[in-house]
């Protein structure tokens, strides 16, 4: 009797590391396959040109930075829809503060914007109990409105070469600074999620909130903190946008929340909490950038790009979904 049960639990483990793992790793396979297809069909249009490849990194770094934090938010069973609008707002506040008080004041203003929004989102979600979906949906409008108001809907120029180099525009040799930001934050994010007790508590909160509370985890505090992390990452992304374009504009980051969530889910992070992988998220973000780039090189019109991108993302997410 016990043998047969051991066998059946054994097949469960096989299934987990076989089929389910295949699903979890679909992002890496998909990335390789799409890269290969583009390399073969678009080579004459300069797809493999190192400059083009680095451009993909430059275009996706901000999405990746926000998606790393979104991995924590989703793993904790929450969501943050305000990241795109917060990026726009932070780009404006940073640009304005640089104009007044220079580089450091600008950076401080940008980060303070992120903290302020995060505290607001976190308090509404954990103290009043409004679902984060609604809190951050409302914040999306508020952040955009504030950004439009304070900037009078016009671009705020940044005349500070050091800022522009550090936040987005510069490169060390051939390596863009944006790539360094992405890799450094990715490594930190990966270790925090997988190897710190904070990361473990995030996964526990999203995996089973009741059980986590019974185990002595302050799940409200965890949710509060992931929402702050997410807003700060969004603010940083906005600062990177501002540095790259040497100006702050409320439109920067507009609509990014969808790409950010798609990147995390493509990478294997569960929309329902409990599972998350930062490395998968970064590859997911790169894949979205890859697809955008390839579709442009193919000469598709913007309307066609939108349709093709949506279709590819749906396909990839459908393949990577865990079946219960």
């Amino acid at each position, binding site marked *: *009797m*016990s043998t047969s*049960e*051991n066998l059946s*639990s054994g097949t*469960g*483990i096989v299934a*987990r590391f076989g089929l389910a793992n295949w699903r979890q790793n679909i992002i890496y396979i998909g990335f390789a396959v799409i890269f290969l297809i583009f390399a073969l069909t678009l080579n004459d249009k300069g797809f493999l040109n190192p400059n083009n490849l680095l451009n993909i990194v430059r275009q996706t770094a901000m999405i990746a930075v926000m998606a790393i934090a979104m991995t924590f938010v989703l793993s904790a069973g929450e969501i943050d829809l305000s990241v795109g609008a917060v990026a726009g707002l932070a780009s404006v506040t940073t640009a304005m503060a640089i104009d007044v008080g220079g580089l450091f004041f600008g950076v401080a203003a940008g980060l303070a914007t992120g903290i302020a929004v995060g505290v607001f989102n976190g308090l509404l979600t954990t103290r009043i109990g409004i679902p984060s979906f609604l809190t951050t949906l409302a914040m999306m409008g508020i952040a955009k409105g504030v950004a439009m108001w304070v900037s009078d809907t016009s671009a705020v120029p940044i005349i500070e070469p050091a800022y522009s180099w550090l936040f987005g525009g510069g490169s060390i040799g051939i390596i863009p600074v944006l790539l360094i930001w992405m890799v450094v934050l990715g490594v930190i994010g990966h*270790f925090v999620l*997988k*190897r*710190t*007790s904070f*990361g*473990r*508590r995030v*996964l*526990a909160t*999203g*995996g*089973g909130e*009741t*059980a*986590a509370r*019974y*185990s*002595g*985890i302050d799940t409200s505090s965890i949710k509060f903190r992931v929402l702050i992390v997410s807003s700060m990452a969004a603010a940083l992304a906005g600062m990177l946008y501002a540095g790259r374009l040497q100006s702050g504009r409320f439109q920067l980051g507009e609509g990014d929340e969808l790409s950010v969530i798609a990147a995390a889910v493509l990478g294997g992070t*569960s929309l329902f*909490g*409990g*599972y998350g992988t930062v490395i998968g998220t970064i590859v997911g973000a790169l894949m979205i950038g890859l697809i955008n780039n390839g579709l442009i090189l193919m000469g598709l019109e913007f309307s066609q790009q939108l349709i093709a991108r949506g279709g590819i993302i749906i396909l990839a997410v459908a393949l990577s979904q865990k079946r219960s």
Partner: protein
Amino acid sequence: MGQGAIPDSSGQKDRGAGMTGTTHAVDMRGIVKHFGGVKALQGVDFQVEAGEIHALLGGNGAGKSTILKVLNGVHVPDEGTIEICGTKIIAMSPEASRDAGVAMIFQEMSLIPTLSVAQNVYLTREAKTGAGLIDDRVAERKAKELFDMLEVDVDPRALVGDLGAGQKQLTEIVKAISQDARVLVLDEPSTALSVSDVERLFVFLRKLKSQGVAIIYVSHRMDEIARIADRATILRDGRHVITAPLSELPIDTMIEHIVGKRSKGLSDVARESAELGEALLELVNVSGAHKPQDISLTVHRGEVVGLAGLLGSGRSSLARVIAGIDPVASGEIRVAGTPVQINKPKDAIDARIALVPEARATQGIIGAHSVASNISMAVLDHLSNRSVMNTQAVRETADHQIKHLSIKTASRDHAVSTLSGGNQQKVVIGKWLAADPDILILDEPTAGIDIGSKSEIIRLVRDLAKSGKAVLMISSELSELLTACDRIVVMSEGRAAGTYPRHDLDDPNLPADDTMHQLQAAEQKLQFHIQEALKHQGHAHVHQ
């Protein structure tokens, strides 16, 4: 079980140290707890020693779960003192209880399915490397040592979501032990377990006992208690009845203490001999995917058949299979002599079968909607003309059921949630009667309603049968089944263990008109049959 001599593990720290015979692991005295006007506990004493397995027994409403919630710090008692391992607990709270060493094993409640076994055991107490990063390999090694020492066969690297029910439970207990729990509370631990998992649990519990852990074991299964427990405490109606070693408590004595003297109320409901019509519902060797197994059963027009058994015996599963909610794996269902295919609830409704489900709040009513809207919910197609609701017909249907069932509500437009439990239940019944079924299945129709409404519901069930319906009724309160039913089928592990015509359960030595004592005697007999069925089923499985 041939494992009496479990080697002493020297690795485990001596939990019994410093405890003398006079210190109880749990010492609760004079515990009083009222909920509004309801006296849940009326001065209960409860003592458990270190190194014993102590069974806590009692019928529904005896106060078992209340006293456990007091021990666990969920309920603050109105009066009484609590000492845990010699420490007097002054301000009782879940935290204070846990810090004093009490661990309640919830059914999988404290495990996170998306984390591994080792990660769960050491959640919030993770092993760290020198750099302060979590090191799961150390946790896995520690967990492996702990599981090996306690002789529990669970892979620390396995994901909890992939474990079977038995392994999950063992993991939960190990987690509690690793947090220095000295009093373990297990509430119906065997319900979700297979026979072999129960054996493994027992071996494990004996091992913990030998290490000085006090174990409180709550179960309705007296055969299990007789095998695992050293002593038992029986509660009834919020009072302590007896605490004695199991050797002084044979099963029939336990049953006597649990049932006690029946309070009046239910015995008032007159039991009438049914005039049986033709067979309306016939089950021939019906099995579901897991439960029920191989059920053959006939319910006639005008008859009430009861399903008795413990939680998990397959009663509700059988109801769901007949009502088309769960699939039929094999066997045949006949309605009025004609075989019917029931693949979905609509098929059952078309065959004029109605199920009044067990969880009233989630499966039965929409509390915020009006009485009329709830009653008409299942028959909207009949009350509509090309999808447009005939509001006049809806009102008439509602009014008819309100009158027919004497539902006490200010009007048909009041929200169902404003009604009392008994009247809410009548709304659910009315909803199905509006569809005019021939066969009515009632799953725990009296759960959570007061005694007065209970006897009203029972009377209603009798009336429905008399009006020509075939009724199948599930209840965990045996006295209700005995009052309502013409025949009672005892179920155990998904199978029908025996069928008892109601009059066979009467005691010929008692006067027939002494309904109160007759009911009490019948309840003891039926309880005995249920326990016997458990014993036989258990053996049958072990020898397979």
